[in-house]
């Protein structure tokens, strides 16, 4: 019997787990995927929004601002890469001036600090590659970029280190009822009972709400396609650049990533299938065209990867965070689309407070430790620090991923972390193997070998992302060793 079961280990579920781990509670965090953060959390723009564009008075505005303010502390405690580099909305037409002013006013109303309208010349001075059509920009000093994968797995790891139980590949298929009260979940791995069930299931929340007998709320998956550019592109792009927004999306951005690449996207297209993460010729074309409108000199030869993220666009247009009257023991988080990543730490605080008010005893745990230490990233260290590490553990001396300079020690550490990276993609998100310009061509055989050795399994059992995504399918004829 748990006190709380959290369904969904995306960035929202992970932060809720970590926040509740401060208290003397038995907590179970469940996800149907093979790793934490496999949902929307792994595929988004990774921007810590300043909070000027959400509708004043909305949950989005409230939690965006509150979340943004928590990032320095949260990322320091969790050892997550975060850069409060500021962000820009760039106007490239006369009509855009009015939009920029609207955004500025809305930002003031929302209480966004550090906003400033700047001229086109000033903007181009700060970002020389911008189009000559640039008429002006809105600068938001509190905007930033973050490692979205790490924000999720670090929070989940810290939760686990503080006693939260995590079960992956565990899909909630229904609820255990006692009268009108939900007292647990039915899963593919059997039932789990609890006093509270918190649903943070992203795209799938409406299905679970339906299962809980709640009507009316629907999620529409809204596809966003992206390109990732080689590090070389970083020479041409310094800043987080949004175009002027439209009613459905914030438009095609050009932005550096926290890891030194450049990202272009996303598109915005409503679709039906919640698992359709494919890119399309039309979408990718729109990404490039949109990006070139801001930065005409971007070079298509810099492209190293494309991907798709799905926004969990809710039917109310705002974050829905509630304990529904109709059912006891249930808290739902629905429609957590952008700025959900930014809002996640603040949403978690709010959820804890709601549960406390609803009667869950929140007694602080004396031994709660908010600090998580990640594995040192060899490529980011000084030569002296690198030497010291190799002296401690010679496996830091063996480079396994040539493009991103990832060492064997980092891969081994990710195999034995509180949440082990069991798949190639999980390893990629932990260590950055395979994310550079050769896209895994060099490291794949080496990583398979190391993971097989560390887990004591055959490479035949390893997958790219769980399920049937095996990387190799059989041995060749027996080869002499």
């Amino acid at each position, binding site marked *: 019997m748990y006190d709380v079961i959290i369904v969904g280990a995306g960035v929202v579920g992970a932060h809720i787990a970590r926040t509740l781990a401060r208290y003397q509670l038995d907590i179970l965090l469940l996800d149907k995927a093979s790793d934490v953060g496999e949902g929307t959390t792994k595929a988004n723009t990774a921007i810590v929004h300043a909070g000027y564009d959400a509708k004043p008075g909305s949950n989005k505005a409230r939690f965006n601002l509150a979340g943004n303010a928590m990032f320095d502390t949260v990322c320091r405690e969790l050892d997550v890469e975060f850069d409060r580099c500021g962000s820009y909305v760039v106007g490239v037409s006369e009509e855009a001036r009015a939009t920029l002013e609207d955004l500025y006013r809305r930002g003031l109303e929302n209480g966004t600090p550090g906003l400033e309208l700047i001229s086109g010349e000033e903007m181009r001075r700060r970002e020389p590659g911008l189009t000559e059509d640039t008429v002006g920009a809105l600068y938001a000093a509190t905007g930033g970029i973050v490692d979205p994968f790490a924000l999720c797995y670090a929070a989940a790891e810290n939760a686990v280190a503080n006693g939260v139980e995590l079960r992956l590949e565990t899909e909630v298929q229904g609820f255990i009822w006692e009268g009108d009260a939900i007292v647990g979940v039915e899963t593919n791995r059997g039932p789990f009972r609890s006093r509270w069930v918190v649903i943070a299931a992203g795209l799938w929340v409406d299905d679970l709400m339906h299962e809980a007998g709640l009507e009316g709320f629907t999620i529409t998956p809204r596809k966003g396609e992206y*390109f*990732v550019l080689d590090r070389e592109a970083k020479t041409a792009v310094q800043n987080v650049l949004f175009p002027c927004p439209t009613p459905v999306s914030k438009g095609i951005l050009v932005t550096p990533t926290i890891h030194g690449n450049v990202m272009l996207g996303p598109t915005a297209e409503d679709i039906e299938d919640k*698992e359709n*993460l*494919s*890119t*399309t*010729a039309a*979408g*990718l074309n729109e990404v490039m065209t949109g990006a070139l409108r801001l930065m005409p000199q971007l070079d*298509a*030869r810099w*492209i*190293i*990867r*494309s*991907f798709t993220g799905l926004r969990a666009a809710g039917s109310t247009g705002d974050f829905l965070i509630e304990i529904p009257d109709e059912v006891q023991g249930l808290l739902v988080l629905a429609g957590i689309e952008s700025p959900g990543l930014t809002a996640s730490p603040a949403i978690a605080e709010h959820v804890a407070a709601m549960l406390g008010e609803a009667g869950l005893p929140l007694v602080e745990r004396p031994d709660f430790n908010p600090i998580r230490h990640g594995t040192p990233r060899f490529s980011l260290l000084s*030569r002296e620090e*690198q*030497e010291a590490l*190799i*002296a401690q553990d*010679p*496996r830091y*001396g*063996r*480079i396994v991923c*040539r493009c991103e*300079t990832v060492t*064997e020690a980092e891969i081994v550490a990710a195999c034995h972390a509180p949440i082990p990276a069991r798949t*190639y993609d999980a390893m990629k998100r932990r260590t950055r193997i395979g994310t550079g*310009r*050769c*896209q*895994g*061509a*060099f490291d*794949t*055989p080496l990583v*398979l*070998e190391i993971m097989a050795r560390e887990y004591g399994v055959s*490479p*035949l059992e390893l*997958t*790219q*992302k*769980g*399920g*049937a*995504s*095996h*990387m*190799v*399918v*059989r*041995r*060749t*004829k*027996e*080869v002499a060793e």
Partner: protein
Amino acid sequence: MKQLACDVLVIGSGPAGLAAAWEAKQQGAERVMLLERNDELGGILPQCIHNGFGVREFGDDLTGPEYAYRWIAKAHEARLEILSETMVLDVGRDRRVVASSRDHGLVEITPRALVLAMGCRERPRGALAIPGSRPAGIYSAGTAQRLVNMEGYMPGRRFVILGSGDIGMIMARRLTLEGAEVVAMLEILPYISGLRRNLVQCIRDFDIPLELCTTVAEVRGRDRVESVVVSGVDEQWRPLPGTDREIACDTLLLSVGLIPENELSRMAGVAIDPVTGGPYVDESFCTNVPGIFAAGNVVHVYDLVDDVSENARIAGRSAGRYVTQGAPPEDGSVRLLAGTNVRHVVPHTVHLSRLEQEAVVLNLRVRQPIEEPVRVEVRAGDEALVSRRYRYARPSEMIALTLPSALASRLAAYDAVNIDVIS
């Protein structure tokens, strides 16, 4: 950091690095050091278990590992200092090299001459921006070659190969021999991009369906690849509507081009030719940075390993002489420009005093195939300084053209000459 000293340092122990290091030693450089990131020497050769290597170099038809082994034996005999499992992380303009290894930690080496021989890497899917899903089962042909030939694992059962590069063709045969099915090889161009001999021996002999002017328009599948949608293309290489067809497969191999590996070269301030992807070099394979030379696929992608060894020896000889005799005097040079139907020419410049002493062999690739006799000419204005006949010209087959020493005096009148290939 541990400091090491040597005369000539070579980065990469493929056929280029081995030949350059060996030759530098023959020139009298005393301490020649070879750094290799893999645990085995030989570069890409250990995974190329097919034959066809060394016919010119050794007069024998060898497999890749055999060819490598002969060179490795020579390297040991010449007492080269070899550090394997050692990755070079950084190279400065002053030739200061920082490398990392499990056994020695970080080491810093400042050689008197440096030879870049890092080879090339394969172009990944991302570079083609093929739409669709991102399941397991998409590999570059070279990665698959390593998995099959060195690790002993099959990456799939039913393959479609995109691109008709040599590695792709060789893998089509290998996979078939290993009991897999290769259901199609697709090439976006109207002609194959690898060697004719591989087409015959690896594709035709094994009845592998080859479709030209065709590409993969979409990848499908959730966990593993389940199928690819293939489509004909128009002149701009865009998929032609209405020509789609779905082919069931569990693996997509990409053999869509090699890119010289020049991250380190850039760090060292070496100027890179955007066409070849490799350094600008002169006839001695010296880059724009004095004392830094380049050899093998790092300069431009060769088709035959024998050519790699031959050219790398020139680079090694230049590095050796740079150490024993000092930098050659700066004197008059002429630039060689890619002219009509020529994609690129290596070397990019030729010093006339050195041409006077020794003929220089140019390597060039054409843009378009010409399946009839062609003339390869060195032209200055209306004048053809050299003109030679060849039976045909194909982008997949590098053309060698010799500039005789006698030409030096005539070239002195020009800053630059054009190399043309015309029918």
